[in-house]
């Protein structure tokens, strides 16, 4: 319980339950205010829904557990687990794995978008949003914008842990920021896969299961942890077509201050494709869910 709430409940206890009945005359005058503001823009309603997501974080700070503790554990675990075996030492491995583990942390967390949406739908609050005269995708876009803030927190935490254990990116601050931006663009697009899942599956558990199943080959069958050169041919073929590999290569290049190659175009292409396909599928199911 936050201090905010403690004071609120203390005040409530101090003032005996005042006559808190609704007043017909005041309701009538509230109704009589026939003010009909101009219909807000798509951007404005999306940002308002993003604000809602941040308010929820304020009231339920535990929501930040997955974006703070989880990346720390993953970074430390993978760096020290593989560091010695793969690169000889942690200090050498960190340069290779830091951008990869950043990508892994953030993409893994994106699946919570799906479970959160399912919970919202089940509670009925989405009925209210869907009955409003607003740009239809805005509750979902707003939610993903709010999530972008969570992803940013995860990125900062992961980067901080990597820096603390010896990561010195060649690309400097600007390179790291550019890498994170590319990652956030891809994460936002991947979010539409989970929103679609949450509209066709009935429970948060089922969404989690399917999302993990999809994420496993994407994250582990990639160049996040090791150079694919040592892998058997069939796995190399998969790693090659895996969009996460291109994303990781791109993020690595930006953070290491190297010239980014075709990976930028490929990653942005995938992002656009995901939004086009799964954004459309999501909106199609959104009209008539369940």
């Amino acid at each position, binding site marked *: 319980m936050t201090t905010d709430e403690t004071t609120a409940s203390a005040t*409530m206890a101090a003032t005996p339950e005042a006559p*808190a*009945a*609704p007043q017909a005359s005041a309701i009538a005058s509230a109704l009589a*205010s026939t003010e009909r503001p101009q219909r807000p823009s798509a951007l*404005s309603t999306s940002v308002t829904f993003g604000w809602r997501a941040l308010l929820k974080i304020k*009231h339920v700070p535990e929501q930040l557990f997955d974006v703070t503790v989880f990346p720390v554990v993953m970074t430390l675990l993978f760096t020290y687990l593989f560091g010695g075996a793969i690169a000889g030492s942690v200090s050498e491995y960190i340069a290779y794995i830091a951008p990869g583990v950043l990508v892994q942390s953030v993409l893994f967390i994106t699946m919570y978008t799906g479970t959160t949406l399912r919970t919202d739908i089940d509670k009925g609050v989405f009925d*209210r949003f869907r009955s409003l005269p607003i740009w239809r995708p805005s509750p979902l876009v707003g939610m993903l914008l709010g999530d972008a803030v969570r992803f940013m927190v995860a990125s900062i935490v992961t980067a901080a842990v990597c820096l603390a254990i010896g990561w010195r990116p060649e690309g400097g601050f600007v390179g790291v920021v550019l890498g994170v931006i590319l990652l956030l663009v891809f994460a936002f697009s991947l979010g539409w896969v989970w929103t679609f899942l949450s509209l066709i599956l009935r429970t948060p558990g089922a969404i989690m299961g399917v999302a993990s199943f999809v994420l496993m080959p994407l994250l582990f069958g990639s160049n996040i942890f090791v150079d694919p050169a040592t892998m058997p041919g069939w796995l190399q073929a998969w790693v090659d077509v895996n969009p996460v590999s291109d994303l990781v290569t791109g993020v690595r290049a930006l953070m290491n201050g190297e010239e980014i190659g075709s990976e930028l175009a490929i990653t942005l292409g995938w992002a656009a494709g995901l939004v086009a396909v799964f954004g459309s599928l999501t909106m199609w199911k959104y009209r008539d869910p369940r």
Partner: protein
Amino acid sequence: MAELAIETHGLVKTYGETRAVDGIDLAIARGGVHGFLGPNGAGKTTAIRMLATLIRPDAGSATVLGYDIGRQADEVRSRVALTGQFASVDEDLTGMENLRLIAKLYGYSAKAATRRAEDLLEAFGLAAAASRQVKKYSGGMRRRIDIAASIVVTPELLFLDEPTTGLDPRSRNEVWDIIRAMVDYGTTVMLTTQYLDEADQLADRISVIDAGKIIAEGTATELKASVGSGMLHVRVMDRADRDAAREILLRELVVDVDIPQDPQGLTAQIEDRGRVTRALTALDDAGIGLAQFSLGQPTLDEVFLSLTGKPAEATDEEEAA
């Protein structure tokens, strides 16, 4: 404004094998309260969700305030509001934040949204709870914030899905007062309920719905006339008097008098309440002592029994008169 608030033709919604709504025709005038009465699972919520453009009908057509719910859904949405059966506000946010959120989504500036939210919280008796999370509200308060959120911009038509289910009597009366205040102002309200007495209290006209079909429509008085004025339950003091008491009731009430399991009990479906007083006086005159008697309002069960020949799933408590 001559056009109807709601007009539907053959509205159908199926979920798998179930025809949740099975061909509903409605013609509801503007103004006042229209009640949708039926047991759980009758299709009330599904029908309302179609009319509020939340789900799409599988067949049939409907206009709300003159706009087609399919082709002109956006026009419908900007004129109606919905208070769902379950919390239709965000339980993690405070009452104030919820109302500001809705106001901003309607296009209010940040300042105007705060002012509107304050006015509404005050009007609904929630000012003291403005900065508390809605999940900490009582059932009655939660329902009030739900309704307040529905009138952030005054709707022409308000859908209320079972607004008093699960509320204590005091909160229920408060919700009723709110609905009356809105109707006095001129808002059209469409209300679903499982309770005959709620429909009786509020609704000008009632559609009785069962298994996705409308099985009766009319005013509360008309519906009740179809089931008589309720049930008379009598318990004689001495079981030996029961047959004599039955003879007197048969004569005075001019309706059939049933003999329940209870060896001292008698029940009769009443058509004319006036006769009950005479019947009780006659029992007294004959020296038959009564342990107890009660005259119940016709219940939803009785309405259903008489309309469909089978009892409703949800039973309603009888009101002792």
